[in-house]
C-alpha cells in the first residue's frame, strides 16, 4: 500500500487492472508523448447492408465473445431502455465475463443486476453506479473491482487505450439509413450525444440502436455513418421525460434555492463576473438552479456571458434565448428544452467528452471555465469532496465531470445543505475522495461558507456579497452542534472499487462495508 497525495492508501496492483499509480496531485502527471490508441480499419463491400433485424443479429455480426468490452452512453439517464434490452440479447447468446464500460449507469439499470450476479458481466468501468448495482458493488458481489472515472478521464482512457471497447451500442434517437446519428431529430430525443462520440471513434464495432430509421439523410450529424457498422431498430430506446429527473431535476426545493442564491451572489461578487465570463453548473438541484439566480445579477449589471458548458438545462437555454449568453457547449442535455435548443439554435453546440474534459489533449474546454458550481455528498476539512458513496458507505452516485471542472475552472464552488437526514455534510475525512481539496475553492452551505485557505483572495468578495466566512473546522462544529457527530462507518479490507482521478492515477479506493 502506498499513501497518495490525499493521504489514502492505494495498493500497488489489483486484480483486473494490474499496476496502479497513486494520485500525486491534480497537476502532477504529465505523461510522455505517446501514440493514441485507435480502433480497427475495416473495409466493407459496396453492397453491404448495415441494417440488421434484431439485436442478437447485431451481436453475432460484431463477433462479440466472452471476455470482451462493451459500451453505452447514458444520455437518456433515468429514461434509458437500450442497456437493458442489449444485455437481455447478449445473455440470450450465452456470452459471459464481459466488461461493461458505459459512460454511466442510472436507475433503470437495476434490471441488469442479475447479469452481474450470474457473471454475464464481471467488470464495470463507469462514471456512476446507483441503487442495486451500487449495492452489489459495495458488497463485493462483482468479480472485479469497479473502476470509477470522470467524464474527462473516460475520454482519456478510451483514446489512450486503457479502455478498449470491442462493441459500442449507441442509443440513436435520430438515425438515417446510412447510419448517421444524432440525439435530436426524433420524437424521443436525448439531445447531445457527447459521451458516445469517443466510443464511435475508437470502438472496434459500432451498433446504432434506434426506434426509427429515416429514409432520408440526417442534416445535422453527430456521429457520421462511416463509423457505424450496424443499425438495429427496436420499439423503444428511451423516455425523454425521464432525463430531467433525479440528479438533473429542476428544483423547487427551498433549501436548493437558498444554496443556489448564495452561490449566484458569490459569483456576482467575484472578479470573474464580467462580460464574456464562462461557467458550468454540475448536476444536483441546487447547482443547476444557480443559473436562475445568476441571470438576475446578469440583467442587473448588464453582463453577457461568453459560454456555458456541461450538462445543459432549460435555465441555460433561457440565457441563450434572452441573449445573455453567447453560446452553449453541450456534452449532455439535461431536459427536453435543451434537446430542442440543440436542434434549433446554432449557438448551442454539441461537444464530445474529449472536447469537454480530456486531460490529455491540446486543451479541453474545462480549462477555460471561469466558474463551476458543483454538488457534494460529503466535504472534508481538507476540502476533499465525495460524490460517489453515501453516508452509509454504499456506492450511490457518480463521479461525472466533478474533478475535471474543479481542476479546470478558475473558481470552483461546492454547494451542499449542511446536513441531510441528520448527517452532517462537512466531516473530518470524506468516505471517498473523488475531487482533491486542492481544486476546491469555496464550500457553501445554508449555515455558512468556508474558503480554502489556499485562496485567501476570495474572502473579501464573499464578505462584499454580505455573507460571513467561517473556517471550515468552525463550520463543521456549527453543523455538528445541530446534528451531533455520527459513528464512523466500518469497512472491511476488501477493495470493491477504485476511484481513478482524471489523469489515470488512483485517488481513492472503496472498501466493502462491514455488515
Amino acid at each position, binding site marked *: 500500500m502506498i499513501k497518495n497525495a490525499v493521504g489514502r492508501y492505494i495498493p500497488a496492483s489489483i486484480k483486473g487492472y494490474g499496476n496502479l499509480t497513486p494520485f500525486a496531485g491534480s497537476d502532477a502527471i504529465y505523461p510522455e508523448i505517446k501514440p493514441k490508441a485507435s480502433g480497427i480499419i475495416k473495409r466493407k463491400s459496396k453492397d453491404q447492408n448495415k441494417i440488421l433485424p434484431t439485436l442478437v443479429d447485431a451481436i453475432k455480426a460484431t463477433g462479440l465473445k466472452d471476455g470482451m468490452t462493451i459500451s453505452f452512453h447514458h444520455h437518456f439517464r433515468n429514461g434509458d431502455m437500450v442497456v437493458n434490452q442489449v444485455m437481455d440479447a447478449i445473455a440470450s447468446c450465452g456470452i459471459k465475463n464481459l466488461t461493461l464500460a458505459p459512460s454511466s449507469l442510472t436507475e433503470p439499470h437495476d434490471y441488469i443486476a442479475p447479469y452481474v450476479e450470474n457473471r454475464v458481466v464481471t467488470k464495470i468501468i463507469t462514471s456512476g453506479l446507483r441503487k442495486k448495482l451500487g449495492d452489489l458493488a459495495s458488497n463485493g458481489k462483482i468479480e472485479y473491482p469497479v473502476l470509477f472515472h470522470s467524464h474527462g478521464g473516460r475520454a482519456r482512457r478510451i483514446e489512450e487505450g486503457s479502455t478498449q471497447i470491442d462493441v459500442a451500442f449507441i442509443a440513436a434517437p435520430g438515425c438515417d439509413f446510412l447510419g448517421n446519428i444524432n440525439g435530436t431529430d426524433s420524437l424521443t430525443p436525448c439531445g447531445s450525444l457527447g459521451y458516445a462520440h469517443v466510443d464511435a471513434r475508437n470502438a472496434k464495432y459500432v451498433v446504432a440502436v434506434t426506434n426509427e430509421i429515416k429514409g432520408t439523410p440526417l442534416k445535422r450529424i453527430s456521429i457520421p455513418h462511416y463509423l457505424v457498422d450496424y443499425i438495429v431498430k427496436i420499439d423503444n430506446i428511451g423516455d425523454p421525460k425521464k432525463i430531467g429527473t433525479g440528479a438533473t431535476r429542476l428544483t*423547487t426545493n*427551498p*433549501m436548493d*434555492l*437558498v444554496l443556489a*442564491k448564495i452561490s449566484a451572489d458569490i459569483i456576482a461578487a467575484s472578479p470573474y463576473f464580467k462580460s464574456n465570463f464562462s461557467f458550468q453548473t454540475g448536476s444536483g438541484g441546487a447547482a443547476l438552479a444557480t443559473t436562475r439566480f445568476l441571470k438576475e445579477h446578469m440583467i442587473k449589471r448588464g453582463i453577457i456571458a461568453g459560454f456555458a458548458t456541461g450538462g445543459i438545462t432549460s435555465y441555460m437555454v433561457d440565457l441563450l434565448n434572452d441573449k445573455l449568453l453567447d453560446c452553449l457547449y453541450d456534452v449532455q442535455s439535461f431536459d427536453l428544452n435543451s434537446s430542442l435548443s440543440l436542434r434549433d439554435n446554432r449557438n448551442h453546440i454539441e461537444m464530445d467528452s474529449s472536447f469537454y474534459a480530456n486531460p490529455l489533449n491540446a486543451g479541453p474546454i474545462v480549462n477555460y471555465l471561469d466558474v463551476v458550481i458543483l454538488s457534494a455528498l460529503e466535504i472534508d476539512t481538507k476540502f476533499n469532496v465525495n460524490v460517489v458513496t453515501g453516508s452509509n458507505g454504499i456506492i450511490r452516485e457518480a463521479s461525472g465531470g466533478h474533478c475535471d471542472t474543479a481542476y479546470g475552472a478558475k473558481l470552483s464552488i461546492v454547494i451542499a*445543505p449542511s446536513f441531510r437526514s441528520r448527517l452532517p455534510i462537512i466531516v473530518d475525512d470524506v468516505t471517498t475522495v473523488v475531487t482533491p481539496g486542492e481544486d476546491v475553492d469555496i464550500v457553501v452551505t*445554508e*449555515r455558512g461558507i468556508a474558503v480554502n485557505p489556499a485562496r485567501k483572495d476570495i474572502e473579501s468578495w464573499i464578505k462584499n456579497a454580505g455573507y460571513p466566512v467561517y473556517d471550515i473546522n468552525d463550520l463543521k462544529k456549527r453543523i455538528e452542534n*445541530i446534528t451531533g457527530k455520527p459513528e464512523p462507518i466500518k469497512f472491511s479490507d476488501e477493495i470493491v472499487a477504485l476511484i481513478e482521478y482524471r489523469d489515470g492515477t488512483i485517488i481513492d479506493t472503496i472498501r466493502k462495508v462491514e455488515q
Partner: protein
Amino acid sequence: MKEFRRRTQLYVPGNSPSMIQHCMVFGSDGVLLDLEDSVSIYQKDAARELVAQALQFFDFGNVEVVVRINGLDTPYCIKDLERIIPLKPDAIRLPKTSSKDDIMKYENIISKIEKQNGLEVGSTKIVPMLETAVAIENAYEIAASSARIIAITIGGEDLTADMKVKRTKEGKELYWARAKVALAASAAKVASLDTVFSDVNDDEGLRSDTMTIKELGFDGKACINPRQIQIVHEVYTPSENEISAAKEIILAARKNEGGVVSLNGKMIDYPVVKRAETTLQRAGIDPNSI
C-alpha cells in the same frame, strides 16, 4: 427589546421537525412556529413539545421567532402558553381575537404565567390575529388595548369565511378589512402584518398582492413557502433611485435643522422626511447612519 424588520413571517408547522430545523435559513425576517391550524388535534401535544425543544436548541440568529398558539376557545391554549412563555420567544401570535376583552383575558393569563416563572410582567409580546368581521370592526380598540402588542395581523381565510365571501387572488373582498387593519395599527403605533397568499406557484399573483398591501400601509405579510420570501422582499425593498433620493432628503433636512427646505424644486417638510426614513429602514439602512 430587539428591533425587527417585519416584511416576511414564514409559517412553519409545529409538528414538522424537518421544516423547523431549517426554517431560520431561508432569509425571512421572522418565523411563525405554528401550533394552531397546521397541526391536527391528534398532534397538538407533540407539536407543542417539539416547538419548545426547538426554541431551546436552535440558534435563530436575527430572525424574529413567533409562536402561534391555539385560541382561547380550545383546550390547548393554556397548555401552549404555559409551555412556551417561559422559553421567551420574541412574540406569541394569538388567533381569533375579536375584542379588547379577548386581549384582557390573555393579558391576565400571560401575566400569571410570567409571575410564576419569574419573568418580568409585560415582557411577553403578543400579536393578535383579526380573523372575524367583528374583530375588523374593533381593530383599533384591539391594537391599542395592551402594551404587549407589537403588531396586529389579519387572517384572510377565516375572515372571508366569516363574511361569507370567496377568497380571491385579486383580494377585493379583503380591501376594506385590510385598509382598516393597517390604519388601526398605524393609529396604535404597532406594526401591521398581512395574511398569506395561498398559491405558492403564482409568483406574479403574490407580487401583485404584496404591492397592494404595501400601498395600504402594511409592514409585511406571512408566507407559507420559503419561495415566497424573496418576492415579498423585492416588493418591500426600495430601488437604488428611491434610496439615494431618501438620503438626499434626510441630508437636506438635517442641514436646515428640521425646518422646511426646498430640494430640486420640491418642498421638504416633516412628512417627506418621515417617508424618506421609512424608505431607508425598508432598505435595511439606519437613517441616523447617513
